[in-house]
């Protein structure tokens, strides 16, 4: 057991060094920086105007929208495509995967180590971005916002958003680590998963559960009203409560990882087209 831990540590160490240095992933940083930039501008502009035209409540609703439609469905989604699908595929393109395959690492351990490395960088990036944007969006209210965060519901909401962001990294990470083992072009599985996640509300209850969004959307602390043409079409199967959503998502993640580990065992290294 301690050998496996040491090996996972060794993989983690090498992967972290590579991930943070990789220029291939520059656009992931851009994706994460986007909302920080927007909320930062919002703060600066509103502070300059001095005029409070909206309330803290409205800002938190706007943040809920940003989080749901940008972070969950675009930013973290494509961020995970960028980070996780390169874990194996990137090494096949660079012809370096054989170095790992020539060490006495069990393939399961390799998958675990690489996944943890991806998870660590993705989580730092996206939880960080979420927290900073959340703190910036109401910053221009000054003391009132501090009060909202530290003595009101703010901290609880922030905690939920961070948890959801981290879980999204975990779930999408597993999806795209696995797809990176099978597809040369990461955008093909990305498009398929994207469509799947977006038709999720219209799917029958059983299929709904094979999804990342399904578990996470109900964990978001502030509900966004669904606009009219869609609200009737949504078959709102029992929204998963917290104690189902978190284990449910983790279970989906583990199943995907187990499958990835299994296919990593039978992967051959030829680096051919």
């Amino acid at each position, binding site marked *: 057991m301690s050998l496996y831990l040491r*090996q996972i540590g*060794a993989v983690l160490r090498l992967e972290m060094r590579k991930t943070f*240095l990789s220029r291939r992933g520059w656009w992931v940083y851009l994706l994460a920086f986007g909302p920080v930039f927007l909320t930062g501008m919002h703060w600066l502009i509103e502070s300059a105007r001095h005029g409070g035209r909206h309330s803290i409540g409205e800002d938190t609703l706007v943040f809920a929208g940003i989080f749901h439609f940008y972070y969950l469905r675009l930013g973290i989604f494509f961020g995970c495509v960028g980070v996780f699908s390169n874990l194996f595929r990137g090494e096949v393109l*660079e012809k370096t995967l*054989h170095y790992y*395959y020539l060490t*006495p690492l069990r393939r399961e351990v390799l998958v675990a180590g690489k996944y943890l490395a991806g998870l660590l960088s993705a989580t730092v990036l996206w939880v960080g971005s979420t927290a900073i944007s959340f703190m910036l969006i109401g910053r221009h209210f000054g003391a009132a916002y501090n009060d909202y965060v530290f003595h009101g519901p703010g901290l609880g909401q922030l905690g939920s958003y961070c948890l959801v962001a981290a879980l999204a990294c975990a779930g999408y990470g597993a999806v795209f680590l696995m797809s990176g083992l099978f597809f040369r072009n990461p955008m093909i599985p990305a498009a398929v998963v994207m469509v799947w996640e977006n038709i999720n509300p219209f799917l029958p209850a059983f299929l709904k559960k094979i999804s990342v969004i399904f578990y996470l959307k109900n964990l978001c602390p502030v509900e966004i009203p669904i606009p009219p043409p869609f609200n009737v079409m949504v078959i709102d199967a029992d929204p998963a409560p917290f104690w189902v959503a978190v284990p449910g998502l983790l279970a989906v993640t583990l199943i995907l990882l187990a499958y990835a580990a299994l296919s990593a065992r039978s992967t*051959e*290294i*030829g680096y051919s087209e």
Partner: protein
Amino acid sequence: MSDNLITFANVSRFYGEVLGINNVSLSIPPGVTSLVGPNGSGKTTLMNLMTGLIRPTEGEIRVLGIAPNDPGRLCRAVGYCAQFDAFPKGLSGYQFVYSFLLMHGFEPAECGRRTLAALEMVGMMEARNRPVAAYSKGMRQRARLAQAIAHDPQVLVLDEPLNGLDPLARAEAIALFQQWGKAGKHVIVSSHILHEVDRISDQVILLSQGYVVAEGQIQSVRGEVKDQPMQILVRCSRPNQLAARLFIENHVVEAKLHTNGKEILLRTRDADGFYLLLNRIVLDSGIEVESVSPADDDVNSVYQYLIGGEGAAI
């Protein structure tokens, strides 16, 4: 089943429709073994098979008694310096060797010690802290060699390890291979050209188009080669006269005149001798020779290619 051998039992490997190697049976004892064959003959395929990177379509492989699909055991016994000249990004030579040693489960201090020993052995101590990206081709080759030997494997598989090395580094590398071979390790080296490696090899395996065409100690392989008749096609002005002269000299085994009266197909056991004789005949008789070319693309011409002109010199 011996634990001291690398064995292939009727191993075939296909890449879809493409033949990698076909029905290879081998038993490789310790010492330096050279895999020799032209491009695409299956050298890398054979090496990838014995290191577990790919699996055989048919047949069974054992490396010192270990099945190649058991990386936990195999990769402690085997070090493979593959043909891919690629490295993980952003590492120095030292970090490169060290990082993969960690995955063997050694303590960090032990990894450091082994890394330095391996770099020392290939003469890369000075450049060890420079980024691999700034290395020359020969330095990268040596860094990869160091990585392959750092865990002190019993079996070393080296795919064209002399590529990109200057004569001095080449001599040093060859000395290392011999030293490891003498120490009882399996050292398996591939090359395009036999005389590049024949001096140091305890045995050679000649490959052509996925088949093992000869195998054994270098002298016996050479003997086999000498005995293979070779076909030569000559276009000349008076082919029947040429044939007559050749038979008088008792040199060719067989001669076939082409119906066009311009060409003659000859079989000889001694190509070098034949060329010398042909020159003499041409000078003596004034036969005008248009072209002389080896006529078979089978095993014989592969031998000629591999062994080169001075094949008989040993």
